[in-house]
């Protein structure tokens, strides 16, 4: 195992004590004069929380910004579906919260596999995010006195989560979208909708721009810029069934990876404990029920396997409140990875509930008795309605049934402290990067990170990179590298259309997802991962030879779009399995059955694996090169993560 630091993986963490690093950085960074900012073009791909906030703020500062989304409107990005809330170390409850505590909880929640410097900065700016979003008019929940309300979330012992009913992501995204829309109206941002990134272009080791495809006409276009930000989300759809939106994909990140951006910790994927179990084989998408439900819902299964009685007929002493029993101090608020494994084991032990025995109960009867139906309705009413629409059952009367599903990916493009990838001039923000959540993300931290990156980090760090480039020419779109990238993309899409095989892109996607879920899902083994790595290349070859895409390349063609995305998911899937196989330890969302203690808890190996694995493209995902960035813990003491 190599542990030497690769010079390309220098995280550039500023000097000083942990609490001073970000201030020190800001005091030392180079600035671009306000009148000179308009001489710089910045491209932002993706308009979710990270992308919309970055594009709006960079335009406010005076940069020329081009923003791209494959949706019809920036407001559709999948950040919108986040339900529960956003963390911030405001300590408005006076319950002992602080920046340091949020920092520590995040490091611990990530099972000590995240970089201290980045995480501390995240905790510091979390307080600014709430101020900013309130000023923008986000209608957060309020107390009767008019001050902001908070709720608790998994993995924390303080109430630091701000929320807007069960639609916090929607309200935050609309806030960021409205700031972006304002800049579009003012001419600060050129917005390209229904346009998808198909390649990044690198000239002399620097990111020179991108090639995009107009999804209405199939036309390929090059765009040159001084800096490119990828805020393109995660890759959870590699599993086919996940809580991600149908169009979420890895293409932008993957195409950047193929052009030299290293891909970090792809095996760190998060399985969310509270989703509605699959009900039927044609299902294409799983639906999340907010983790906030675990504040008042109790997770249980029958004590005895095969007990098929309705929940109400099972007496208390024949119920197993799994999380309360195993983790008394956190109870139903244990972190996501831990709660998910507990649910999986309960179902695997034959005690699953529901017609397919594929779920566990999330019971609100005690909360309704304690608080009254009105209070429960006020807290969770819209979630209960959504559950009823999907399942046909009323959770006020019978417990919800839940089961874990893929939800978020902690891995992503490797970035340094400035959120710059290993390709200078190319940045990654939000879920697309790997930086802040280690091996497991805590609830209500994704919204925090997306907005931190976009509002409060990139606008500073991009200036530091751009300042020395003032008045220096950059390669234009007539540069041969752009023409080559366009030609490659044209060939790629022609190939999908011309294969004339028998199977649709969705068929391949479903088969790919099965292999990844079975072998690189909630529990992984050496044998399973090797099996996956043996099964994936032949399936990928079949994809290349037996794909059928109907329609043409000159008008809207969703089948063709899907083909390109599935192609990239195949390659990523192989890398994920390789990363999971090489990481001979269990940490956070990466649980290798070989590495667990007597009680079935994850067993880390800090001696050999306290590092980031950053994979380098080498022409074939099966041949990618594993590089290492050691993680240094100066402030936090490495400890076994316990929630008991």
């Amino acid at each position, binding site marked *: 195992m190599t542990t030497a630091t690769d010079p390309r993986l220098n995280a550039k963490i500023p000097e000083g004590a942990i609490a001073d690093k970000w201030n020190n950085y800001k005091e030392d960074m180079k600035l671009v004069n306000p009148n000179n900012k308009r001489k710089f073009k910045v491209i932002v791909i993706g308009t979710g929380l990270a992308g919309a906030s970055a594009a709006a*703020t960079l335009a406010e500062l005076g940069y020329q910004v081009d923003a791209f989304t494959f949706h019809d*409107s920036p*407001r*559709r990005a999948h950040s*919108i*579906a986040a339900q529960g809330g956003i963390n911030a170390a*405001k300590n408005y409850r006076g319950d002992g919260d602080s920046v340091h505590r949020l920092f520590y909880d995040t490091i611990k929640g990530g099972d000590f596999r995240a970089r201290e410097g980045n995480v501390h900065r995240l905790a510091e700016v979390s307080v*600014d995010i709430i101020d*900013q979003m*309130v*000023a*923008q*008019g986000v*209608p957060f929940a*309020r107390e*009767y006195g*008019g*001050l*902001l309300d908070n709720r608790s979330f998994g993995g924390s012992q303080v109430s630091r989560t701000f929320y*807007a*009913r069960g*639609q916090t992501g*929607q*309200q935050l995204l609309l806030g960021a*979208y*409205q700031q972006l*829309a*304002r800049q579009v*109206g003012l001419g600060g941002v050129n*917005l390209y*909708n229904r346009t998808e990134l198909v390649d990044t272009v690198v000239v002399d080791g620097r990111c020179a721009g991108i090639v995009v495809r107009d999804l*209405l006409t199939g036309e390929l276009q090059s765009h040159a810029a001084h800096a490119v930000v990828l805020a393109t989300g995660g890759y959870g759809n590699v599993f086919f069934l996940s809580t991600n*939106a*149908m*169009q979420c994909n890895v293409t932008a990140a993957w195409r950047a990876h193929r052009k030299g951006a290293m891909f970090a910790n792809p095996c760190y994927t998060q399985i969310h404990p509270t989703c509605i179990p699959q*009900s*039927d*084989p*044609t*299902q*294409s998408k799983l*639906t*999340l029920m907010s983790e906030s439900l675990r504040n008042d819902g109790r997770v249980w299964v029958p004590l005895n396997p095969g007990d098929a009685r309705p929940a109400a007929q099972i007496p208390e002493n024949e119920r197993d409140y799994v999380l309360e029993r195993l983790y008394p101090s956190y109870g139903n608020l244990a972190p996501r990875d831990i709660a998910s494994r507990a649910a999986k084991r309960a179902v695997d032990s034959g005690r699953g509930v529901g*017609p397919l025995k594929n779920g566990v109960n999330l019971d609100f009867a005690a909360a309704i008795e304690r608080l009254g139906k009105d209070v429960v309705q006020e807290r969770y009413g819209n979630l209960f*309605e*959504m559950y009823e*629409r*999907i399942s*046909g059952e009323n959770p006020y009367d019978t417990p919800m049934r839940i089961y874990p599903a893929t939800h978020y990916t902690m891995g992503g493009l490797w970035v340094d402290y400035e959120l710059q990838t290993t390709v200078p001039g190319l940045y990654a923000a939000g879920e697309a990067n790997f930086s802040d959540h280690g091996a497991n993300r805590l609830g209500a931290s994704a919204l925090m990170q997306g907005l931190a990156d976009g*509002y*409060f980090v990139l606008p500073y760090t991009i200036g530091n990179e751009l300042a020395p480039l003032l008045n220096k020419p950059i390669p234009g779109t007539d540069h041969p590298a752009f023409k080559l990238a366009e030609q490659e993309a044209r060939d790629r899409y022609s190939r999908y259309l011309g294969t004339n095989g028998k199977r*649709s892109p969705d068929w391949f996607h479903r088969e790919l997802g099965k292999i990844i879920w079975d072998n690189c899902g909630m529990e992984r083994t050496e044998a399973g991962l090797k099996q996956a790595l043996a099964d994936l290349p032949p399936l990928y070859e079949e994809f290349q030879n037996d794909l*059928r895409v*109907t*329609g043409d390349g000159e*008008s*809207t*063609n*969703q*089948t063709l779009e899907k083909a390109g995305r599935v192609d990239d998911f195949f390659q990523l899937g192989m890398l994920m399995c390789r990363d999971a196989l090489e990481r001979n330890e269990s940490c956070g969302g990466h649980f290798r059955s070989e590495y667990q203690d007597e009680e079935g808890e994850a067993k880390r190996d800090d001696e050999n694996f306290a590092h980031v694995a950053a994979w380098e493209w080498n022409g074939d995902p099966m041949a990618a090169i594993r590089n290492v960035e050691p993680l240094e813990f100066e402030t936090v003491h490495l400890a076994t993560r316990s929630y008991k």
Partner: protein
Amino acid sequence: MTASHGEHLTNLTLSVWRQKGPDAAGAFESYRIDSISDEASFLEMLDVLNEKLIDEGRDAVTFDHDCREGICGSCSLMIDGQAHGPQRGTATCQLHMRKFKSGANIVIEPWRATSFPIIKDLMVDRSAFDRIIESGGYITSQTGGAPDANLIPVPKPVADAAMDAAECIGCGACVAACPNGAANLFTAAKVAHLNLLPQGQAERHARAESMVETMDEYFGSCTNHGECEAACPKEISIDVIALMNKDYRKAKFANRKEIARS
């Protein structure tokens, strides 16, 4: 994973609007769905249809969709003449086949509104909504200058009312359902969200005026049919339109230099 536990619907006929491009002539085409689980969502039924069409070497039906949780606002569809189909307060993606019966003939069309031109099949262009937001659907607050969040107390009933309006998902059902193709519910939901909040007061009248006038450039006029409220998947009340009209009227008369006195 495993077989379905629900009932199956059989012998469905779908009449789907097919149109190759914005300027092409369109027509209904009929397709059969022999059997589908009643646990399937409406869009999963269309997924099944598309798989079948691709298997037969035909073009899949184009339709907008994404989150399938009723929140992104991508999905649309007039189902048997109703925006988002028969279930009240439910977007198409959350509609399930248990709301239909075996043997049914289901008519599926794109949003009907000249302000939302058809792109292909069931997909339409709703970017006029973005133009309305760009004209004033925001609170000007440059990143970095915000005061502490608790310095701006918002009474709970006010925050709740703002949130009721802010739940709009921008799907366009209100326009599609309106006999006039008016976008008043969409526009008023945003005006109400921001104009109710203390943070929104500085731009209150400018916002109402600008957004209403941009809306009028693209959409028809409201004549209080109320179809929009009935079609809205978030059940946003048409009361917000009254609020917008009041603010628009005031905007036309108010002396904005003296706004602090009102």
